[in-house]
């Protein structure tokens, strides 16, 4: 069941309505915990009917994708829950805690490794392996999410969650289950203890976040996918300029695709009263590669920073170690995305750009200082130049993300430089990109609206700004967005790119 499917349009309101009815009951009781403890069977105590409802809904949601893997989800939940009982136990001795941490982590990483890399490894030994493993949707996300619980209980940052059902809900919470944001146990788990009332303003804000997500996916990402696929599938016939254009469009496509999922997830959770981690903060406004990664897929990059980079020593042991750690983290991030080598290359290249940026920082600063004119205009131009350069480097690395193989990535990158053909800038018609007049009109208007939203969001909460507008303006925008979304449904629901990870 995709967020952009008719099924979800029925599922989500049904879940929300029943959730609020149960929450209302929970909230109206003088002492909710005590009341529930009296009424509910033992295994439900401390969880609450509303949370139980969310848990059942989340498993139903997951089983709509592939029922078989619900057992895997349960297994991951059970192993991390059991290990967490030891890692978070203050009275347990350190060795035991370490053992539990190692066991829980290794078991889950092995599961992830098996599902992600088995086919690759089997392919090395046989051209047609007898066993082919299907990648369970969302596995990378929920395993990483449950590992945050293990790590944080071990460090003492997060108390043990003894209620298995509540913990299971943390692992399987449906808005984040399939493609994140990867939530921390310290952030999400306590929210299940609170009573979430029906709050009109909050629901309205959440729905606007959801609508923005649908807008990004349906109006922009799905259309750009047509052009990007056309260019990448015919890379040998394209000029360097067309390949560059295709790569730029791909970067915008993947942003709109993934940010849309995150936005819908955050909005859906907000409707029910939950606050999720922001996953994107206008990444194309970053002025450096480092900043770019602090704005892009924030929950994953934060995960790697806190649980890999810092434990490896971070920047505490000299420059060489820092750069090595950066490279390790980015290469691992590439590996997390998939078993193919081109993902590793993408990760390594992104890491390399960040290392180079750090090495060249003093030189850049000297050039800027030595520039003869310093005023507001040059400052602004410098800022724009930094944004463009950062974006350009991101595009170059993204070629390896999109390409079918490393060889393809090398070929496309090389062709961009050696076969650019400046005149093709003027001879390439937008209609050569496989988009008709309607699509071009929609995607152009969509991009303009996205840029405006992003620029506002950089300084304020764009959804709140929209809500503060006069009724006529607000409703004008609502209708424009709704019509553009509806006008884009004819393309057909495409899966979100990050479901593949």
């Amino acid at each position, binding site marked *: 069941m995709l967020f952009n*499917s*008719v*099924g979800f349009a029925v599922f989500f309101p049904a879940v929300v309505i029943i959730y609020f009815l149960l929450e209302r009951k929970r909230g109206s009781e003088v002492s909710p915990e005590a009341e529930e403890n009296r009424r509910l069977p033992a295994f439900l105590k401390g969880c609450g009917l509303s949370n139980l409802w969310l848990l059942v809904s989340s498993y139903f949601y997951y089983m709509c994708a592939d029922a078989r893997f619900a057992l895997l989800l349960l297994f991951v939940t059970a192993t991390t829950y059991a290990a967490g009982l030891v890692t978070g136990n203050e009275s347990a001795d350190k060795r035991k805690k370490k053992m539990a941490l190692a066991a829980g982590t290794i078991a889950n990483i092995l599961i992830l490794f098996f599902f992600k890399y088995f086919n690759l490894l089997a392919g090395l030994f046989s051209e047609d392996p007898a066993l082919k493993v299907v990648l369970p949707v969302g596995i990378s996300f929920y395993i990483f999410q449950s590992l945050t619980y293990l790590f944080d209980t071990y460090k003492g940052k997060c108390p043990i969650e003894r209620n298995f059902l509540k913990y299971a809900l943390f692992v399987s919470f449906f808005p984040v289950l399939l493609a994140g944001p990867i939530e921390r146990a310290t952030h999400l788990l306590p929210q299940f203890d609170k009573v979430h009332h*029906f709050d*009109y303003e909050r*629901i*309205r804000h959440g729905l606007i976040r959801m609508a923005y997500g649908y807008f990004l996916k349906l109006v922009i990402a799905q259309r750009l996918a047509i052009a990007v696929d056309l260019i990448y599938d015919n890379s040998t016939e394209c000029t360097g300029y067309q390949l560059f254009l295709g790569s730029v469009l791909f970067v915008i496509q993947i942003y709109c695709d993934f940010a849309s999922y995150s936005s819908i997830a955050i909005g859906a959770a907000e409707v029910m009263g939950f606050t999720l981690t922001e996953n994107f903060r206008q990444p194309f406004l970053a002025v450096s590669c480092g900043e770019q990664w602090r704005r892009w897929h924030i929950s994953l990059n934060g995960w790697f920073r806190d649980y890999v980079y810092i434990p490896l020593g971070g920047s505490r042991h000299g420059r060489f170690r820092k750069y090595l750690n950066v490279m390790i983290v980015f290469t691992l991030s590439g590996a997390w995305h998939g078993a193919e080598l081109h993902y590793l290359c993408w990760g390594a290249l992104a890491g390399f750009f960040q290392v180079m940026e750090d090495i060249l920082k003093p030189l850049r600063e000297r050039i800027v200082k030595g520039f003869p004119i310093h005023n507001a205009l040059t400052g602004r131009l410098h800022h724009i130049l930094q944004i463009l350069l950062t974006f350009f480097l991101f595009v170059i690395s993204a070629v390896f993300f999109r390409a079918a193989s490393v060889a393809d990535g090398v070929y496309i990158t090389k062709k961009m430089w050696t076969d650019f053909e400046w005149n093709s800038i003027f001879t390439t018609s937008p209609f050569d990109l496989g988009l008709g007049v*309607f699509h071009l009109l929609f995607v152009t208007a969509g991009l303009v609206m996205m840029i405006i939203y992003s620029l506002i969001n950089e300084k304020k909460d764009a959804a709140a700004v929209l809500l503060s507008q006069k009724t006529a303006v607000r*409703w004008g925008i*609502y*209708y424009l967005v*709704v*019509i553009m979304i*509806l*006008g884009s*449904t*004819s*393309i*057909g*629901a495409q899966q979100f790119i990050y479901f593949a990870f």
Partner: protein
Amino acid sequence: MKNDYIKLIKKFILISLPLIAMCLFAYLFPMGYMTTEYVLWTEEKDYVNQWQNDTQILDTLIVGDSRAKSSIIPEELHDSIYNIGIGGSTPIEMYYAVKNFIAVNGAPKRVFIIFAPYHFINMDNWNQTIYNNYLKPAEQAEVVGEAIKTGNKVVCYKGWLTDAVSYRLRLPSKYLAQEYEGRFIKLKEENQKKYDSIRADRGYCEFGTDPGSDAENYEVHCEAFDPLEIVLTYYDKLLSLLTENGVEVRVFQAPFNQSSAEQVAPELLNGYSDYLKGQMKKYPEIIFETEIPVYDNRYFGDGNHLNREGARKYTKELKEKLEEEGFEW
């Protein structure tokens, strides 16, 4: 709190207005943007579901798929005939067509049935049945029930329910592409003309217009006669419905072109013939033709369908054959 609920519901309705408007447009003006295929389905659906003042005269129905539709020209066979065949249909759609006709107009005097063997094996046009909202919800539910029983994945594929609801509600995700394609109302005149011409031709419609075709028909690509259980069930239901209502039934075969006849697998022809012979035993009151005639390629508008000249030839031969038998109209 209660006010907030009401406010939210009100705003939800307001925000849904464009969606409602789009669905209503798709529902109310299909002739403006839908393809010719839709016109064929609609003309037939209208015919069987409306009271026909002329049933006293038009008391013979031709039932079947596109080969039935394109093989018999009613006005050249007899004054009493209307062709309610539909391109791509199987006995499923035709069972409900006949059932609805009987419910509205009473049983016809006689029915001629023509189905290509291919439509016993394949239901690749089922999506058109759903897309054109040909069946009523209750009828569709009945087919689904049968599909569940027979394990048919064409009807009960993953997500069939969502699709069924989406098509019924005329959601933009299903119809907007066609609305763009047809520029919303641009096809209205053209579609209306087609509708009127089919009505004037008493349901006859040409599918292929080439002056000859050596293209292979669908059956060439089938290795054997391996019918779908759900189709057999409905074929049986169709024959039972007709015989129970005292309708005189005859089963004919539409011709193959020479090129296809030379290539089609004997296993398919034998299997099909055996199946029909089995039906003959079950329904002794029905006259079955089991041999598939072969015509020269020049009589075909495409690999599967007779062109007008071919239809004339087939109709003429059928007329002569019936006259020889002393068939009473």
